C-alpha cells in the first residue's frame, strides 16, 4: 500500500536544512525582536489588520512572516517525508505518533491556560503553532530508534 500523502525520503534533508536556520532566526525574532531591514515593506491596505492611520502605518517588516513560514514549512516537510523503508509498521507508528502529538499538544495547552498569564501567554500561542509537528517528530523517531536498538541483539 502506497501512502500518496508522503514526500520522498530525501525531503527529510531539505526540511532539516530549512528548519535549522529558520528556527535560529525565529528565536531571535521572538525573544530579541530581531528584524532584517531589507524586508521592510508597505502592505496593501485591504489586508486584515492593516490600516493607514496616524498611529498605525501600513509599513511592516516581513522578517517574522518569513521566519515563521520557513519554520512551519520545514516542520511539515520533515513530518511528511517518508522513511527509507516506509512499510506498514512505520505507517502504523506514524499514525499513532500523530494521535499522540495532538493529545500531548492539548494537555500542554490546557496546562498553559492555567499556568501562564497576561502578556506571557503570547509566547504560548506562538509556540503552540509548532508543538503538534514537533511532538510528532520526537515521538515517531523515538519509537523507531528504540526498535532499532532492540534489534541489535535479536538476530
Amino acid at each position, binding site marked *: 500500500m502506497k501512502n500518496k500523502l508522503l514526500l520522498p525520503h530525501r525531503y527529510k534533508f531539505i526540511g532539516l536544512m530549512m528548519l535549522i536556520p529558520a528556527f535560529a532566526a525565529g528565536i531571535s525574532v521572538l525573544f530579541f525582536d530581531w528584524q532584517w531591514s531589507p524586508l521592510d515593506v508597505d502592505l496593501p491596505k485591504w489586508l486584515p489588520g492593516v490600516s493607514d492611520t496616524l498611529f498605525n502605518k501600513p509599513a511592516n517588516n516581513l522578517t517574522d512572516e518569513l521566519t515563521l513560514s520557513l519554520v512551519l514549512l520545514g516542520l511539515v516537510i520533515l513530518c511528511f517525508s517518508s*522513511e*527509507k*523503508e516506509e*512499510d*506498514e*509498521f*512505520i505507517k*502504523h507508528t506514524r499514525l499513532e505518533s500523530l494521535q499522540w502529538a495532538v493529545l500531548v499538544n492539548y494537555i500542554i495547552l490546557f496546562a498553559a491556560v492555567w499556568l501562564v498569564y497576561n502578556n506571557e501567554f503570547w509566547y504560548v500561542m506562538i509556540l503552540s503553532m509548532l508543538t503538534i509537528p514537533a511532538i510528532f517528530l520526537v515521538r515517531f523517531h523515538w519509537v*523507531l530508534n528504540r*526498535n*532499532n536498538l*532492540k*534489534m541489535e541483539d*535479536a*538476530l
Partner: protein
Amino acid sequence: MKNNIRVERAIHNMTQAELAEKIQVSRQTINAMESNKYVPSTVLALKIARLFSKPVEAIFQLDPED
C-alpha cells in the same frame, strides 16, 4: 495475537534481515512482530505464511484477550 515467526525463522535458518527482504518490509517490522508489539496486516500475514509454506493459523494464533 501471538505468533511463532522467530521459531519459523530458526527452522528455516533465516535472519530478521533476510526475512524482511523476502517479504519486502523493514527489519523493524519483523522485530516489532516478533516481540508482539505489532499485529501485521492480513496481506503481510499471508505473505509470511506463504514463505514458510504453512497455513496462517500455524504461524499466527489468537490470544485469550483477543
